[in-house]
């Protein structure tokens, strides 16, 4: 590994540049960014001293651009880290990001807030595509092309938590039942469509069924705050209809016309049972 080499022996210039090349390739393969071809780099300049990189192997032996904060220059000084360190300090990232000549943006070195913001914006955009009326809903392939599983996970856990908080007894069992019902239900529903000979992508369908829970999440929140049976009934009916309306085009377009009802019925069953749980948990 390059770490052990750079720790002990001063290398000559060509070996160091080879190591840089390899680390560049590793960087490029690890990142989830757009696939760009790495520009052909000239040999990295020979160095007087070899920096000791003691953090995980994706460490910047790459020559950093001139304006550097002092924290990153400390990395060049050999020191023993206190722990297996997470990605290098925050101040480094903005200067390393694509200079057109250097490496592609490294999602491991970017600020955490950037990562979270990117995922959040993807969740919001998927939500807008699936749950709210928009012109792309007619074409399922286009609608949820950028599927993710974070959104469904949040919605399922949120629903389980709402139900668990609403329950007066056996709270943990309620959460377990709700979570198991939704998670296993999504998988089984997708398998059902596949077994009926439909054409659907497994994870895209999981993602979709999770996003269609969003109206029921809102319903559960309202029901938790307002404990009147009649209000609960009306709210759950409205949100249930909304969820079914959101899920309908995707499922019905995936199967043969003669089997549409067979594919839609289990979706209906699952959402109705979740709606019943919301009403019934007191």
């Amino acid at each position: 590994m390059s770490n052990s080499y750079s720790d002990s022996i001063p290398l000559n210039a060509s070996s160091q540049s080879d190591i840089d090349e390899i680390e560049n390739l590793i960087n490029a393969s690890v990142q989830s960014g757009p696939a760009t071809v790495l520009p052909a780099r000239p040999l990295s300049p020979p160095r007087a001293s070899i920096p000791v990189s003691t953090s995980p192997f994706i460490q910047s032996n790459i020559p950093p651009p001139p304006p550097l904060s002092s924290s990153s220059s400390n990395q060049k000084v050999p020191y023993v880290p206190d722990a297996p360190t997470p990605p290098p300090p925050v101040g480094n990232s903005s200067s390393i990001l694509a200079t057109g000549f250097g490496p592609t943006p490294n999602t491991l070195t970017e600020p955490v807030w950037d990562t979270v913001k990117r995922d959040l914006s993807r969740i919001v955009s998927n939500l807008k595509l699936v749950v709210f009326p928009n012109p792309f809903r007619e074409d399922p392939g286009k609608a949820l092309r950028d599927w993710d599983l974070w959104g469904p996970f949040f919605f399922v856990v949120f629903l389980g938590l709402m139900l668990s908080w609403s329950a007066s007894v056996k709270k943990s069992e309620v959460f377990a039942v709700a979570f198991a019902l939704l998670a296993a239900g999504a998988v089984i529903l997708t398998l059902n469509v596949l077994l009926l000979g439909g054409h659907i992508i497994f994870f895209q369908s999981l993602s979709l069924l999770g996003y269609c829970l969003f109206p029921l999440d809102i319903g559960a929140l309202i029901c938790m705050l307002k404990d009147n049976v009649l209000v609960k009934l009306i709210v759950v009916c409205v949100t249930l209809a909304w969820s079914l309306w959101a899920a309908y085009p995707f499922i019905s377009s995936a199967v043969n016309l003669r089997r549409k009802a067979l594919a839609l019925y289990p979706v209906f069953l699952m959402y109705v049972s979740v709606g019943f749980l919301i009403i019934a948990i007191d």
Partner: protein
Amino acid sequence: MEQSSYSNLATTHLLGSVPAVLNEEKKASYEVPGANMQIFPPSNGGGGYQTLGAPTEVFEQQPPNNWKGVFSISSYTQYFNVDTDVVINRLISSFYPIGGDFFSKIDANPDLYGLIWITTTLVFVLASFGNCATYLTQKHSDSSTSWSFDVSYVNVAACGVYGYAVVVPMAFYFLLRYLGSNASLIRFWCMWGYSLSIFIPTALILLIPVEILRWIIILIAGTASACFVALNLRSYIEGNDLPMMVVASFLLQMALAIFIKVWFFP
């Protein structure tokens, strides 16, 4: 490939040029049907020549089985090859206990769709209506009780219904195989699955909080379902040498009905 770029060139006006052959790829994939390899000169067992046997043998009389392994979805799609009208037809025929022809109806194309979704619907219905019925019963006797949702009904319903629907047909299958009769597990699962469909509307009617009425309703439904199972099983076994099996299936179905009444609709 290269052909496409060459075909764009206008070369026909050039003397001696040959136009590129188009659609070469299509022809390459054309398969000659029924190619029999024979070594010339064909000799019938004489000399040192061997003629290869005709490759187009008659296949065995097994129905085409697309089993591609346990973890491949396409090997299970053969059990879900039904349309909506077929499922509804089978569902309605399961409501008629006298008939005994269910197996002949599903013989060509047994499906597991009915088993899975009828049992799941039954679990949900029992859990939800069971809670409602329990509440109504308590309200009937003591009008100050408040609604409480017992989530253990879901667990018990799931274990009970899924366990019954999976284990009982398997037990009958193995028993019949052991006794020499020719049984098919998928058809058993299919039939038992559809036999449970009577209990779904029954659960709705069982909401009425009058005890004697509940017993009458469940006995009627249980008898209908059990007759369905027993008569179909008898016509499948096609012999009176196993009356115990038929009686056992009847009793098991009745036991399930009584369990439903006692646990979910007290």
